[in-house]
């Protein structure tokens, strides 16, 4: 059965993107940022057969036949990696497929994504995981499936973690969507994952404290009469997992951190030398629970939008390095599911195609971070945490690049997204930066308005 | 603003006309026994009070006075977006076996009077109903006739008669205006 008859690259070209392989490229005049090497200068890159063959001030006449892409004023970075994405396939192809999801990732400027295991069947064995990787093989975006920690994500028995590592190359495990409810199971998971220096990404939610909550408990849940759950339900679990990580010596990565207390706990843990990292989403740095007053389902996610104090804590955490990674938690849902009463809307919002713009708006414009820091948090840190090979911008490396226009002003039009989902909280927003394209696995993907940069 | 074409009645004219109407009402009804005066809001209410005072000064005997709000009975209910809200109807005398004299400022299409009749009938069961108006400007759209008319003022299309009363408009006068657009 063909849930999506068009591959990711076909989908991109139907939407007006240029998608080609094989042509040699001269990327001229861009500011090339690679924090891993301390590189930040305006310099040309030459790419041939998918590799970077020359870096420097290049003269066209000396080079083999190629196309030139004029990138004066633009930025080139190592390919961005979104380490928290829900691809919905297998099981809910009506919401998103691997092809539609990766085309959205490419459009958003990502060359790689890590997809969560809450599919149906779940990604809790090497067979399904290998299949997912194969689906994405021919496309411009690499998919790194995250294996489930427990079978069926039920929180009881560990999955065959070693098998998934050896057979399918899995580097990170998570029960995301659900917490690992029992401390003992989490302890064993952290201990077991020390085998291959694996990292566990957690969904921190104490279900008994969260109860029937559909938004953050606070002033606005009171005003709206909606049941809320306190940020306590998140921080109680973050505290538990930090102590378990310290005790076991395992590696912990706190997913979608959203509250001030949780961020303080991670700061404290790092100071103590605990092996903990964490990520935050663009929506948690841009929005607060007040957005729910319209009862618009596009503001419903888990963890819910926090208070202004929480949002400020996320921004500060990104600035002082407590928060290592920016990841979208891209969670597409169908339109039918979104046009119902707020309490019944499924949790989650899409994010691949707005991430860069929202980050630039919230962090860049307010001078919290500069582009080097953004590259660090969206390209370098995710691969470090997952112990994946770094992407270096150096002669002889595989070309895996994200091209950014840091001055583009554009308006978010959900109808034009490549993701199947339309559940975005940023509809109609004016954003101050966007991805112009990606180069990866021999592919060049260029946004419709960037095509004119080619000569 | 509508353009005033002519001033048909001034304060003194209105005073005399009201006195004449009062005499006519008393004459037709052979006195004030079982008689009640009900004004149609808003200007009909003020006129009714003046007629009431005039009748009292003529006969020296008591009679009923009330006010009728017809907002809920208008057939153009859906069109009006502005204006005073619905207000109280108060007819403190018993309408059974009573002649009710409805008082309004201008009789035109007759729709207001029809609405007033409906409202009155839902309120109680008057013995008889008579209609007294300060101005009749013709162009009836319903078979309604006034029993007591202050002044007949024929109007052409594009013209309107406005009654101004001290209680609402700071001056007593009846003017003929040219309407700017649709009424």
């Amino acid at each position, binding site marked *: 059965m063909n849930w999506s008859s068009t591959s990711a690259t076909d989908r991109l070209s139907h939407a007006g993107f240029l998608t080609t392989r094989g042509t040699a490229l001269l990327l001229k005049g861009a500011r090339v940022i690679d924090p891993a090497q301390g590189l930040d200068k305006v310099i040309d890159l030459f790419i041939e057969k998918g590799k970077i063959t020359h870096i420097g001030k290049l003269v066209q006449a000396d080079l083999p036949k190629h196309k030139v892409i004029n990138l004066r004023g633009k930025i080139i970075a190592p390919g961005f990696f979104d380490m928290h994405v829900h691809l919905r396939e297998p099981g809910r192809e009506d919401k998103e497929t691997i092809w539609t999801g990766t085309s959205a990732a490419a459009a958003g400027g990502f060359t790689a994504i890590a997809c969560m295991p809450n599919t149906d069947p779940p990604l809790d064995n090497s067979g399904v995981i290998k299949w997912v990787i194969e689906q994405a093989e021919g496309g411009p975006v690499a998919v790194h499936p995250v294996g489930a920690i427990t079978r069926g994500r039920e929180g009881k028995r560990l999955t065959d973690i070693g098998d998934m590592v050896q057979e399918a190359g899995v580097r990170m495990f998570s029960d995301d969507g659900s917490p690992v409810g029992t401390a003992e199971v989490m302890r064993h998971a952290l201990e077991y994952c020390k085998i291959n220096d694996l990292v566990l990404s957690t969904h921190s939610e104490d279900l008994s404290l969260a109860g029937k909550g559909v938004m953050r*408990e*606070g*002033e606005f*849940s*009171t*005003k*709206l*009469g*909606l*049941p809320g759950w306190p940020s306590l339900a998140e921080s109680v679990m973050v505290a538990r997992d930090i102590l378990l990580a310290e005790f076991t010596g395992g590696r912990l990565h706190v997913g979608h951190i959203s509250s001030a207390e949780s961020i303080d706990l991670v700061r404290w843990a790092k100071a103590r030398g605990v092996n903990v990292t964490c990520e935050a989403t663009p929506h948690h740095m841009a929005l607060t629970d007040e957005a729910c007053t*319209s*009862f618009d389902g596009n503001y419903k996610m888990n963890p819910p939008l926090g208070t202004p104090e929480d949002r400020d804590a996320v921004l500060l955490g990104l600035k002082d390095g407590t928060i290592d990674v920016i990841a979208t938690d891209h969670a597409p849902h169908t339109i*039918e*599911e979104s*046009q*119902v*009463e*707020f*309490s*019944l809307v499924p949790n989650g919002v899409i994010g691949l195609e707005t991430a860069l713009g929202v980050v630039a708006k919230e962090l860049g414009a307010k001078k919290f971070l500069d582009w080097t820091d953004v590259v660090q948090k969206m390209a370098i840190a995710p691969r470090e945490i997952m112990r994946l090979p770094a992407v270096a911008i150096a002669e002889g490396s595989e070309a895996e690049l994200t091209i950014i226009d840091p001055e583009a002003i554009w308006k978010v039009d959900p109808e034009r997204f490549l993701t199947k989902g339309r559940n975005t909280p940023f509809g109609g927003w004016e954003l101050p930066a966007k991805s112009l394209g990606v180069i990866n696995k021999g592919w060049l993907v260029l946004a419709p308005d960037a095509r004119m940069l080619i000569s | 603003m509508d353009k005033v074409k002519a001033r048909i009645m001034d304060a003194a004219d209105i005073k005399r006309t009201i006195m004449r109407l009062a005499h006519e009402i008393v004459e037709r009804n052979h006195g004030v026994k079982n008689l009640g005066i009900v004004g149609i809001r808003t200007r009909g209410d003020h006129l009714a009070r003046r007629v009431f005072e005039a009748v009292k000064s003529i006969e020296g005997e008591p009679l009923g006075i009330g006010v009728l*709000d017809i907002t*809920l*009975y208008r057939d153009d*209910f*859906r*069109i*009006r*977006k*502005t*204006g*005073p*809200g*619905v*207000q*109280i*109807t*108060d007819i403190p005398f018993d309408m059974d076996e009573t002649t009710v004299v409805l008082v309004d400022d201008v009789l035109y299409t007759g729709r207001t009077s029809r609405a007033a009749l*409906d*409202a009155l009938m*839902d*309120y*109680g069961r008057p013995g008889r109903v008579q209609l007294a108006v300060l101005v009749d400007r013709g162009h009836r759209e319903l078979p309604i006739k006034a029993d007591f008319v202050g002044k007949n003022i024929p109007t052409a299309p594009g013209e309107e008669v406005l009654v101004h009363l001290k209680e609402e408009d700071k001056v007593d006068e009846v003017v003929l205006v040219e309407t700017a657009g649709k009424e």
Partner: protein
Amino acid sequence: MALQSKHLLGLEGVSREDITSILDAGLSFKEILNRPIPKVPTLRHVTVVNAFFENSTRTRISFELAEKRLSADVVNFSGSSSSVSKGETLIDTIRNLEAMKIDIVVMRHPLPGAPQLLARYCDSKVVNAGDGAHEHPTQALLDMMTLREVRGEFDGLRVTLVGDISHSRVAISNIYGLQTMGAKVAVCGPPTLIPRHLERLGVTVYTDLDEAIRNSDVLNVLRIQMERQDQGLFPSIREYHALYGINRERLNSAGASKDLVIMHPGPINRGVELDADIADGPQSVILQQVTNGVAVRMAVLFLLAGGNNELE
């Protein structure tokens, strides 16, 4: 004359002028209810659907009477709350009804925000008859109409809501409406039944009933639901009655003013939150509230149906 909004979804953000228009119109309609023919033909061109997705006999009857007194055509629709998995969605249900040419939907629904959903995706005018724990604007309006009759002015009037505030749409709507009109609002109840951050709405919070009584001109006593006991939010009825029950003895010992007004949205758990000696006594305006309920609902329907319509 017409209200500023096409709908009545709640009292949050509703202006003083609009509330006053409704209360004033309510008085006229109350007078009509006392006539031998308590009917006016005003809404005979209007069809109203009472879409009740949550059981409520009293509110539905009150609305139905209001609609019929205005000569509107009335259709009653009751259903279990909808969700995509259970069957027809809420939006589809209402759109189906709209295809039969209806004008106004009066809706009660267990989930907050359901009226907003309708207002966004459907064409009819929407009156919120209670959406979960969010708002119940007509209840607050009839409460205010009653208070205005009994006390005249709202400015500085000290109104305290007593009981389960955290699950009460009556409380929320009253807080918004009374504050707009200049009253001073307070709440009183066990800490487990008072929502967090309520003070941010400008409301004083008492947990001591005696203190609340001494500082109030009006007590609006809310019904306590037995399910809250099952959820562990208060220990027992006996305890609740002892600490928060309103009766003559309690009012006397707290030093309540003789003019203290007692209200209750009904139905009353006699002997729990309110004893008979007060419920049936001279300070109680509970039955007046019920009468005013029909009048206020007539006012709301009249003002919504009449305003904002285009010339045909």
